């Protein structure tokens, strides 16, 4: 009997339960209730977010697949397509950092190769609480090892990403994993169950009791009982996934599959129902045929298990033997567990007994859609009045303090745990504005970046959304790439609270607005709500993943200064903006708005100038200004790369020195070029109406910055390097 407490345990409301009984015209049994609870969970159904996500631009002439499939697909020419997506694995990573993060990688990889693409890179966006708290270090160490453990073993390079630290992530760290794959345009596979009577193949790991209710868990806040949630986290087996990857790609290459979907969140339930629903067919499986890891599993457990490294394939009858032999070559189980029907139903049998019989429409299409109340928070996020902010007594100290803050310090401690070179495509290593991967046997390269400043989004969700897209595109422009597609991971608190819903709605509108301005389609992504523990939400964190194309391998740009004596130019304008900055956070311990202004027309002009200058071989380095402002950007240009060249800078703007050094005004790029290119560049910038200033020269052993003739920073590059380089490892030292 289904009673109120069982309904509640399954994360369903009374209204939702009533809707279910009305739809199926009877009471569901427990297994059926479990199926609804998964498919109607926020994680699988997008019931609170759908209504807003509609605002995204999703089409374009190069879009092969927009949102709604396992991943988005964009045509990049040469008969090739890029397949990419970002997913969150926040909740599991907090409960069990290593396995939570590892299976996050495993899941997103499957989303990519299930479409016929070979994964060529992953990136990740990580958010932790401050490293001064031991528990946060444990979580971070576990997450990084987990990502490394899975990615390194399977042989997909982890080529970059971002790491932020803030108190709001102490009880709710974020692990967002992005994966990019390449497929032949004419060899793309979809989640389909076609051809009545065709066999349904179960491939990969056996089903166990792990991860039962993972999707439901990810759709609720954590309370004090979170330690008890550990059994909900799955355990990853990258070796098995490697076999699955190679075998599936071989099966697809040989055209032995009609449709394929991985068993990710909601496992067998999600893959069977979605494949059949996508084709307007039905599906029937026998639970007793499912390979099982342990004895005595109930249909409920089998249907809800989230055991990893499993795929569901529909094949033509006459080809199924051939497909099975490919899997046998790779030592994988490939068992026929059922067939495609014309019933538009999901039927699960246990031998002769029917244990589930549900209309697919009810499961997939008739989940309620909510237009939840959205109201700005009261009081609103704080605003900082610059008149109340005193100047630092010592700019050098402030500069060094910012440089060595974990969010802005060197991330090699993380990156070197990842195999970022396997597959031999990584041309720009992690740490630059964007990671660059050449495409073998072509003259093209792909650039990828993840971006999202959650403090901006907290103080102004709409600006935060716009800036996240703009900065990601600016990162691409700095390496010489034009953006072609966007995916996004939206991490927010409890959507049932009106202020959270408001943040969400505003951020989505901001992202939509910016994507429209840049004319780049959003091809999918993931929404992660309920990032709250004990009622405290994270900052709204919208992570944008943008993929770009570089048309010639000799037009790849990098951020570091290349030689002494080059001219340093700053594109864009310097404004007196310090709201939501790292400077305010670290030097004045203040977190408040307003965020930097953003004008998308100006932004586009700056980016297109940068791209043009790169394509004309005018410039030798380009680096975007973001967190930490001009000072941080200059330092990175000196520190990245092997030569570590200093700089001499004269700033003439008549604004506050701290704003000039550390303000995070948008739409700025720092470039360096040879003196004899100056005139050509100036005329190009003039034509394109981009303001710029020549601010100094590269060279010397020091980072020297003057403002209105006064020397404010003069520190040896080597000293800055040591602080920047050894900050993060210092937290994790093995004595």
């Amino acid at each position, binding site marked *: 009997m289904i009673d109120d407490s069982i309904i509640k345990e399954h994360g369903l409301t009374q209204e939702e339960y009533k809707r279910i009984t009305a739809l199926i015209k009877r009471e569901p049994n427990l297994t059926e209730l479990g199926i609804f609870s998964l498919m109607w969970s926020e994680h699988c159904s997008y019931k609170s977010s759908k209504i807003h996500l509609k605002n995204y631009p999703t089409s374009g002439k190069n879009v092969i697949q927009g949102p709604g499939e396992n991943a988005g697909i964009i045509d990049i020419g040469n008969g090739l397509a890029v397949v990419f997506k970002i997913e969150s694995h926040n909740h599991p990573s907090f409960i069990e950092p290593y396995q939570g993060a590892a299976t996050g990688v495993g899941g997103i990889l499957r989303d990519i190769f299930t479409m016929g693409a070979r994964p060529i890179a992953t990136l990740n966006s990580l958010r932790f609480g401050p490293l001064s708290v031991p528990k946060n270090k444990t979580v971070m160490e576990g997450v990084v090892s987990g990502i490394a453990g899975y990615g390194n073993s399977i042989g997909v390079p982890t080529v970059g990403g971002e790491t932020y630290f803030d108190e709001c992530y102490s009880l709710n760290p974020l692990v967002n994993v992005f994966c990019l794959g390449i497929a032949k345009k004419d060899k793309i596979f979809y989640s389909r169950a076609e051809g009545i009577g065709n066999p349904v193949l179960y491939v990969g790991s056996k089903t166990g009791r792990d991860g039962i209710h993972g999707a439901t868990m990810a759709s609720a806040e954590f309370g004090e009982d979170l330690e008890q949630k550990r059994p909900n986290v799955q355990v990853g087996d990258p070796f098995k996934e490697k076999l699955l990857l190679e075998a599936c790609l071989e099966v697809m290459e040989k055209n032995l599959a009609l449709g394929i979907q991985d068993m990710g969140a909601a496992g067998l339930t999600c893959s069977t129902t979605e494949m059949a629903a996508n084709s307007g067919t039905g599906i029937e499986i026998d639970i007793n045929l499912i390979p099982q890891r342990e004895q005595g599993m109930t249909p409920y457990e089998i249907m809800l298990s989230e055991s990893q490294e499993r795929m569901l394939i529909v094949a033509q009858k006459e080809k199924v033997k051939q497909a099975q032999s490919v899997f046998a070559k790779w030592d994988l189980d490939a068992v026929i567990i059922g067939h495609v029907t014309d019933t538009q139903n999901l039927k699960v049998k246990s031998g002769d007994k029917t244990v589930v019989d549900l209309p697919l429409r009810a499961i997939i299409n008739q989940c309620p859609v909510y237009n939840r109340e959205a109201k700005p928070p009261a009081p609103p996020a704080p605003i900082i009045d610059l008149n109340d902010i005193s100047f630092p007594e010592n700019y050098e100290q402030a500069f060094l303090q910012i440089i060595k803050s974990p969010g802005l310090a060197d991330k090699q401690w993380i990156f070197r745990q990842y195999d970022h070179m*396997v597959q031999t495509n990584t041309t720009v290593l992690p740490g630059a504005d964007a990671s660059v991967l050449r495409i073998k046997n072509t003259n093209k390269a792909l650039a990828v970046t993840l971006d999202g400043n959650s403090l901006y989004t907290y103080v102004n969700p709409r600006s935060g959304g716009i800036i996240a897209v703009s900065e990601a595109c600016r990162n691409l422009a700095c390496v010489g790439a034009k953006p072609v597609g966007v995916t996004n991971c939206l991490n927010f608190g409890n959507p049932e609270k009106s202020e959270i819903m408001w943040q969400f709605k505003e951020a989505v509108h901001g992202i939509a607005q910016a994507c429209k301005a840049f004319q780049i389609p959003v091809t999918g992504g993931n929404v992660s709500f309920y990032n709250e523990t004990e009622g405290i939400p994270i900052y709204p964190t919208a992570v944008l993943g943008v993929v770009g194309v570089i048309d010639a391998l000799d037009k790849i740009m990098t951020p570091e200064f290349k030689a002494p004596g080059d001219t340093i130019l700053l594109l864009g304008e310097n404004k007196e903006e310090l709201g939501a900055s790292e400077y305010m956070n670290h030097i004045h311990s203040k977190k408040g708005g307003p965020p930097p202004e953003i004008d998308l027309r100006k932004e586009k002009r700056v980016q297109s100038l940068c791209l043009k200058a790169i394509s004309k071989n005018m410039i030798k380095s380009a680096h975007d200004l973001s967190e930490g402002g001009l000072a941080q950007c200059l330092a990175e240009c000196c520190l990245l790369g092997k030569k570590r060249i200093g700089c001499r800078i004269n700033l003439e703007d008549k604004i506050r020195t701290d704003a000039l050094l550390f303000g995070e005004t948008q739409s700025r790029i720092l470039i360096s070029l040879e003196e004899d290119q100056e005139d050509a560049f100036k005329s190009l910038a003039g034509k394109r109406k981009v303001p710029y200033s020549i601010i100094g020269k590269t060279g010397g052993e020091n980072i020297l910055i003057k403002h209105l003739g006064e020397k404010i920073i003069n520190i040896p590059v080597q000293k800055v390097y040591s602080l920047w380089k050894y900050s993060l490892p210092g937290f994790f030292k093995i004595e």
Partner: protein
Amino acid sequence: MRFGIVVFPGSNCDYDTLHVLKYVFKQEAFFLWHKDHDLKNADCVILPGGFSYGDYLRSGAIARFSPLMQEVKEFSLSGGIVLGICNGFQVLLELGLLPGAMLRNKNLKFLCQNVHLRIETTDTPFTNKGKPGQVLNIPIAHFDGNYYIDGPGLDKIKKNNQILLRYSSAEGHLTKEDNVNGSLDCIAGLVNENRNVLGMMPHPERASETLLGSRDGHIIFDSIIYYIKNDR
């Protein structure tokens, strides 16, 4: 020249090695499936990097039982050129074709980074194109690359001049800092007594194209090609 690249379940540098040999060095290169018993007339057999069988046990400990290893062993005993890169090196140790063993890196973390390697001897099929003391820039990517061998073993490989590559500074000095994984005597690569089998932790296939930052891997592959063409 024919290069056979062994594919174990879990190999993940197989395609990289194939790419470099085929498209950069313009050689005949092909995969050898671990379950087969056929080296397809290869002049050189390469055991590539990766995580054979997931390396859940000691790295390389299961791969040594793959059927094809019987042929690889015979091939090496008859003087055939065998190169084990990273996981391939670990497999060669497990197979007993090279002496010693691998421990976890000294910092207990996976390490992926560019390192400097000093060529210790050029009297091998793998380094004849280099100069003694020459420093190469080639990346590593491993968890278990901390080479270990007992005292008498070390004496022996030293006496026989079997140490081919050592982790060093850019100037060729041996320092604790540059010996990133903690290998005994900074050993990064060594040959067997007959000098026809090389195991090395660094990845020469990742350092063979300018676009990827270093071409120093050419020394290794060019040497093998030269040796097979001329000396044999």
